[in-house]
C-alpha cells in the first residue's frame, strides 16, 4: 500500500499525533512501533528551550513533521500559526484546524474554508481537519487542499467512527486522499476507516493515552494495514439471508 499527498510518497498510512504522551521518553519507542508517515506537533509560545526535547527526538527519528493549528478559532489566527510553523519547522505542510466550539471541538466550516484558501495561495500543502460533510470537503478540495481529514467522532473521545456512511460519502465526494482524523479509540476503528476507503488514519490520543502506548501504536499500525488490505481485496456484499458455503447436493438421508 502506498499513499501520495501533493506528489510526495509517504511510507505508511498512519499519521501519529504526539499530544498527551505521559513521558517524552515514550516518543521514540512509540514512533518505532507505529512507523508513521507523518507526526503532528503543535506550535506554542516559548520562554525557553529544553535541550533533548521534543524537536530533537523527532528530528532524530527522521519522520516528517506535520504542524497543526490546534486551538485556533479564526482564519486569521490559523494562518499566522501556520506561517510561524513553516518558519520554525521548515515545512510548508500544515494540518489546518479552526475550531468553532470549545465543548465539541467541531471545526468552524466558514473560517476553515477561508484559512484553507489563504494558505493554499501562500504555497502551503493544506490538510484540513473537517466535519464529515461531503459538500464541505468538496469545497476544501476546490480551493486546493491536498487532502481532507474528516472526523470520525469528537477529538479525544475514542468513540470511533460514529457515521460510517458519511465517511464513505466523503471518500466518494473527493479525489484527494481522505485521512480519518479524530475519534479513533482502538485498532478496529483504524481498520474500519481503511475499509471505508480512507487513504490514511491519524491517531493521537488513542495511542498516547492508552495504558501501553507502545503496544497500541503497533496495534493501530496493524489495524490500518489490515483495513487497507481488506478494502483492496473487496469485501462480499451484505445479504439479509444466509447463504450456505458447503455444497447443497450430496447430503446423506
Amino acid at each position, binding site marked *: 500500500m502506498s499513499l501520495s499527498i501533493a506528489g510526495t510518497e509517504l511510507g505508511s498510512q498512519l499519521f501519529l*499525533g*504526539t*499530544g*498527551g*504522551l505521559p513521558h*517524552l521518553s515514550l516518543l521514540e519507542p512509540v514512533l518505532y512501533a507505529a512507523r508513521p508517515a507523518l507526526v*503532528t*506537533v*503543535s*506550535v*506554542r*509560545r*516559548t*520562554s*525557553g*528551550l529544553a535541550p533533548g526535547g*521534543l*524537536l530533537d527526538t*523527532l528530528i532524530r527519528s527522521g519522520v516528517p*513533521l506535520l*504542524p*497543526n493549528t*490546534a486551538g485556533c478559532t479564526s482564519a486569521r489566527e490559523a494562518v*499566522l500559526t501556520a*506561517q*510561524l*510553523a*513553516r*518558519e*520554525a*519547522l521548515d515545512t510548508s505542510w500544515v494540518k489546518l484546524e479552526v475550531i468553532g466550539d470549545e465543548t465539541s471541538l467541531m471545526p468552524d466550516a466558514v473560517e476553515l474554508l477561508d484559512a484553507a484558501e489563504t494558505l493554499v495561495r501562500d504555497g502551503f500543502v493544506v490538510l484540513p481537519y473537517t466535519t464529515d460533510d461531503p459538500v464541505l470537503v468538496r469545497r476544501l478540495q476546490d480551493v486546493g487542499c491536498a487532502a481532507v481529514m474528516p472526523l470520525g467522532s469528537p*477529538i*479525544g473521545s475514542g468513540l470511533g467512527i460514529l457515521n460510517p456512511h458519511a465517511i464513505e460519502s466523503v471518500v466518494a465526494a473527493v479525489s484527494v486522499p481522505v485521512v480519518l482524523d479524530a475519534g479513533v479509540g482502538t485498532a478496529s476503528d483504524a481498520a474500519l476507516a481503511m475499509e471505508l476507503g480512507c487513504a490514511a488514519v*491519524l491517531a*493521537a*490520543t488513542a495511542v498516547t493515552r492508552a495504558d501501553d502506548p507502545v503496544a497500541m501504536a503497533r496495534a493501530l499500525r496493524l489495524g490500518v494495514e489490515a483495513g487497507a488490505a481488506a478494502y483492496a481485496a473487496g469485501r462480499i456484499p451484505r445479504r439479509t439471508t444466509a447463504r450456505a458455503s458447503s455444497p447443497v447436493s450430496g447430503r446423506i438421508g
Partner: protein
Amino acid sequence: MTIVLNGSTHAGAATVADLIEVHLGARAPRGVAVAVDGEVVPRDRWPRTQLDEGAVVEVVTAVQGG
C-alpha cells in the same frame, strides 16, 4: 522602552535577534519562529529587524500536539 512579548509586557530590545538572545539564551535557536505585529519575521532578518515601542512579539516553538 517596552514591548508585548508572548502576551506580557517586557523590556524591549534593539532587534529581534537581541530579544531572542535575552529571552531564549541563543541568537538563532533551532525550531523557533517569531512574529512582530502579526507578521512572521524570517530568521535571516532577525538581526536587522528593529523593535519599536509597544511592538507585539510572538515567539513560538513546537510542542506535543495532535
